[in-house]
């Protein structure tokens, strides 16, 4: 999150912060542990009223936002999701909303339902190992007359089991296509997965020759590669913002803990080793904020640097964020690995985001490729 926010941005952020403080304190998040969806539709539609679902939608379609960078505004919401370990399909729904808002009138009804919080969606993008390399899409979307036929498996799909609507990304010949369909469409099978997060839910979604009219396509059939890339960037920087919020919370809890906790008659915070660890963790935290803010700006403005900066932010935050939260656990000692302490809720959020949308090694290599290509051009 940027060091300084405009008053409009601060209002947007603090409204969601207050809502989550009130509606989703940690005890409420804990209560969702065994909830199949991980969130209630009442909660979700209240959130939608605060703008969670409309920031990426142009004003003429009923959306709108507070700054000239809608992605940055959405990232403020995501940051608060992170600091609260809040439930709900913020990333997939916004990815789908963003896709539909850019695809004309065909999906106006679905868009409206999502914006109001009456429906939720899932983005069926990643595929199961070993075919889960970054950018690898195997699922087939075949044109058959006026229909398209979808065959393949997606996993993990966030909100896959609770979603009313599925946006499926697949391959049509050499190109990519995207199709929006109801989760209830015949041939769609959803199997819930266990998750490292407490309230977010993931599923495997099978498409067994699922047939829908070609009008279900979002964007051009076989021509959606640019949109898919943009959705991926969006999903990553918003997930990153959420992770950074969780990192901030874990860091703050730890800084406070080392002041309060005594060992050998001294607060932990008087030990130089602890002080230097906190200095490193704080630096990683500031670096995580900084690189994601730069990436958000690039994604929001459609800059040609967006791919590189998004992957750099993902690589950095996944690698160093993972070490940051684990160091927070270490500094807490045994209590840090208990269920009753709240720290793990934030560790979980960071952990799950680290493992989705590509590994940090893949993103690092993507940055390497872009760097080499830039030098080649120069």
């Amino acid at each position, binding site marked *: 999150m940027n060091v300084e926010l405009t008053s409009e941005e601060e209002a947007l952020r603090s409204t969601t912060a207050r809502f989550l403080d009130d509606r989703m304190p940690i005890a409420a998040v804990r209560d969702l542990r065994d909830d199949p969806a991980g969130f209630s539709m009442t909660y979700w539609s209240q959130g939608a009223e605060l703008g969670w679902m409309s920031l990426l939608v142009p004003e003429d379609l009923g959306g709108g936002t507070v700054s000239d960078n809608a992605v940055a505004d959405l990232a403020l919401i995501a940051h608060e999701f992170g600091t609260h370990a809040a439930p709900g399909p913020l990333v997939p729904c916004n990815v789908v909303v963003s896709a539909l808002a850019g695809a004309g009138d065909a999906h106006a009804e679905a868009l409206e339902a999502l914006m109001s919080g009456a429906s939720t969606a899932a983005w069926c993008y990643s595929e199961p190992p070993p075919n889960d390399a970054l950018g690898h899409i195997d699922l087939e979307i075949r044109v058959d007359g006026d229909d398209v036929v979808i065959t393949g498996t997606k996993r993990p799909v966030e909100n896959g089991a609770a979603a009313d609507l599925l946006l499926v990304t697949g391959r049509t010949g050499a190109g990519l296509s995207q199709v929006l369909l109801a989760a209830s469409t015949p041939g769609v099978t959803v199997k819930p997965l266990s998750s490292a997060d407490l309230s977010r839910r993931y599923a495997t979604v099978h498409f067994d020759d699922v047939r829908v009219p070609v009008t279900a396509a979002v964007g051009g059939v076989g021509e959606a590669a640019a949109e898919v890339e943009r959705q991926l960037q969006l999903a990553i920087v918003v997930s990153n913002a959420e992770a950074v919020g969780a990192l901030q919370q874990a860091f703050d809890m730890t800084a406070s*803990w080392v002041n309060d906790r*005594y060992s050998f008659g*001294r607060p932990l915070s008087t030990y130089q080793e602890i002080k230097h660890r906190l200095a490193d963790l704080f630096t990683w935290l500031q670096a995580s904020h900084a690189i994601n803010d730069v990436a958000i700006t690039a994604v929001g403005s459609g800059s040609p640097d967006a791919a590189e900066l998004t992957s750099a932010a993902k690589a950095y935050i996944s690698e160093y964020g993972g070490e940051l939260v684990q160091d927070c656990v*270490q500094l807490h000692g045994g209590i840090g690995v208990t269920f009753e302490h709240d720290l793990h809720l934030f560790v979980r959020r960071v952990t799950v985001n680290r493992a989705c949308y590509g590994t940090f090694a893949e993103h690092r290599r993507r940055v390497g490729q872009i760097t080499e290509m830039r030098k080649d051009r120069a």
Partner: protein
Amino acid sequence: MSTEVEDVESFRQRAGAWIRENLPEQDSSINMSMIRKGMSDEAELAAVQRERAVQRMLFDAGFAGICFPKEYGGQGLTPAHQKVFNEEITGHEFPARLQAPSISPCAAVLLDFGTEEQKQRHIPAILKGEEIWMQFLSEPSSGSDVAAALTTAVRDGDDWVLNGSKVWTTGAWWSDWGLCLARTNWDVPKHRGLTVFMLPIKQDGVDVRRIEMLNGSMDFCQEYLSDVRVPDSDRIGEIDGGWTVGTRWMFHERILFSSPLVTVPSGTTHSGVGAGSLVEVAHSLGRLDDPDTLDLIGEGRVLELVKFAIQGRVGAGIASGKMNDQSAAIGRLFTGLTGARLFTLAFDIAGSTGAAWAESDGPAQHCGDDYLMRQSGCIGGGTLEMARNVISERVLGMPRERSLDRDVPFRDVPRGGTTRA
């Protein structure tokens, strides 16, 4: 008492034959210190019963307490005999839950400090599987600073009255006795006002509550002691001499898996997953041909080989006297870091399966929860921070860290406000 000791090789033959006849084969890579969500309570209780029975079989066959004296129910044999027994039992069922902490450090401490009567009463019972013991050592307030115990014992006639709370006991809910470090004097520096007691766990006044770990494991417990009366005859060691007992107690704990007192399959360590399990994860996800995965497996295996090598070096160094006892902290540090790193490697190999998984994912299904718990091996049994203190101060001889609790009556030591409720 005979001075004739059975030849090690003939002991091996006899032990091996008995094991093959009596103990079913079982994966010996079972990890004694990996914290995962376990079996149901019913199954756990049944497993404890079975282990008591197996321990009794060992006792009856003359294989329990191999290095314990015969007068306390042991076999009076040598570490070499225990070593070959450990080799022979590898790959077979063994009573894991009854080795640590019952036999070591608890029975070991009794052997070192107990009265003749205490030894007679408890060591055979432990070796028979009749008494399962727990360590009432750590406290919510003190973490690595074990000597800062706040649990208090006050003299009342022939008894002591104990109040306080202990934590991080494994399976106290199905155990029988606790070995308990308590404060008997607040007017002297912390190490000089401690005393060790033993007490039955299943009694009024001892409230055992289970701690849920973040991954759902319920192995650990916390105990609340409220006016628990302990006869002075159940005191172990001197009054206010508990740190003498405690030092030895923690020594036994530290060398647990290389202790000649316990029966564990050869090669058992505190190490969590091994590089072999990285291969299993990669295999189950179809990633064996992936160069990234190969790098991660290679890194894990390198660290594992170095871990074995450094354990061997430090063990040899301590045995020969070239390194002091405190050098064990080097192995502890390396093992802790390697364990955490191996869980991380497994998680990174798993990719998105680390975030969300199905039971059908086989070995990969554990990667997410194991990663969330990865620091537990860097905390339990003494944090890595303590190990680094020990290495710098006790091995390298660098200046001691300033502590504000030395030479100060314990009641005047600043304590701060963080205790587990």
